């Protein structure tokens, strides 16, 4: 019973700290998503452009950010970004700059997310017959109109499954930012454990929160998927 008193709200309990950490985790994942999606779409467009040099550049990008451990990417962005920025600022003034952990986490997770998302988008592009682009052209649509009205709706439908998986992975990977002193759910849990000496209880609570976040996400994503696929005929 004492254990659950530690989960009280306020200065004695840890519920508010855990809630703040959860909020940061969610914010970080949500902030990474549009950045990763946009970058992933651009890389996928490059991969399917038919232009050799663009495809090579895009493939190098995917190889790097898909192959590096996320933790290493995070360290490289955080420490490397810090050093590079310091050098850049050092050219003009000698003030000390500090890289914001949230931004570093967002960039690192976004790079990884976009590398995987580009693969999802690229295979979705391949699932759309080339004849549709030609048909759109024959109807006098501009390339932008054809993309927006013909390709994009199908692209969303074809890639929603893969992107849902990537979102769930992203949500879990945000836990890595706890090592660069960002007060996410896992780091606040570490703090709670440090002061209460109850690792089993607090880590279980934290993992349960992650599980609930995943659960809510997959329910939400399932609803979105059902919505974007509402026009598809039902099989089986």
């Amino acid at each position: 019973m004492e254990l659950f008193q530690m989960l009280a709200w306020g200065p004695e309990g840890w519920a508010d700290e855990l809630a703040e950490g959860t909020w940061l985790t969610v914010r970080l994942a949500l902030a990474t998503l549009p950045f990763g999606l946009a970058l992933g779409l651009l890389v996928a467009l490059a991969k399917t452009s038919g232009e050799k040099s663009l495809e090579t550049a895009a493939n190098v990008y995917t190889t790097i950010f898909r192959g590096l451990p996320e933790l290493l990417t995070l360290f490289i962005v955080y420490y490397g970004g810090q050093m590079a920025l310091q050098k850049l600022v050092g050219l003009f003034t000698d003030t000390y700059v500090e890289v914001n952990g949230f931004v570093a986490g967002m960039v690192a997770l976004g790079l990884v997310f976009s590398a995987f998302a580009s693969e999802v988008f690229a295979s979705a592009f391949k699932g759309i017959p080339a004849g549709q682009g030609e048909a759109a052209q024959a109807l006098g649509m501009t390339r932008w109109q054809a993309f927006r009205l013909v390709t994009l709706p199908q692209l969303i439908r074809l890639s929603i499954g893969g992107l849902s998986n990537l979102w769930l992975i992203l949500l879990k990977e945000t836990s890595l930012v706890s090592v660069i002193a960002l007060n996410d759910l896992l780091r606040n849990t570490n703090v709670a454990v440090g002061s209460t000496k109850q690792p089993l209880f607090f880590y279980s609570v934290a993992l349960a929160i992650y599980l609930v976040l995943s659960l809510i996400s997959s329910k939400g994503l399932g609803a979105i998927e059902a919505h974007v696929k509402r026009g598809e005929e039902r099989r089986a």
Partner: protein
Amino acid sequence: MSDATAGMIEAQKPPPQARRRWGIARIAGTMLCGLWAALGLGIAASLVSNYDADIFTRYMPRMMEGLWVTAKLVVLSIMAGGLLAIPLALARMSHNPLIAKPAFAYVYAFRGTPLLGQVFLLYYGAGQFVDELQAVGLWWFFRDAYNCVLLTFILNTAAYQAEIYKTAIESIPRGQWEAASSLGLHKGTTFRKIILPQAMITALRPLGNEIILMVKGSAVASIVTVFDLMGATKLAFSRTYDFNVYLWAAIIYLMIVETLRRVWAVLERRLTRHLVR
């Protein structure tokens, strides 16, 4: 015979290839390739110009030892996890809810929570039960961070692999089970000799991805003081503040993952060559 070709036009050479034009895509692509090349050269230049023989000779051997630890972690956890995964996959498919439900809960819990959190739970959680673990004579195992990490990885990858095997086994048509049973084959024999070999081929690609995920994921071991490749790199960085060590580590990880990916692709092509039409 010669009359037939008399009035015909002689065979012509193919038309010359149309010149590739410098459109926006090509300009952008060339610039981006140039950017990558410049970045690669920049990193190479940084590695050469900031090369510190002292740091290299002191920390490179440690990183190589770390690489060995990483390799051990990955190989052992993938293999032990695989052994655990097959009964788990069968339990997931069981018609008995008392078996299927707990197996589902296990898989869901491990796949729905971050690996780092699982490592913390097991490593620090075990530390809370020193006396109890000593009483049952298991403390020597949990005292070592390496063992805790290895156990977490095994349990984690078992959940992921179970899902892979389940999908693969379910992809084998029911008719194969029926055909085998009409030939009088035992259920266990059918599974071992007929279903599993075919399922493993379907499982090959996701399994390759899982191994790569494990190589990358094993870096979290460094956070609980295991000196794997990442751990050795972090140690070197914290002592020297030489950013190059992270670049060395990045190159090593990239080489491992790329090699694995290529070897796996060759393996897959070889093992599925009878399926190619």
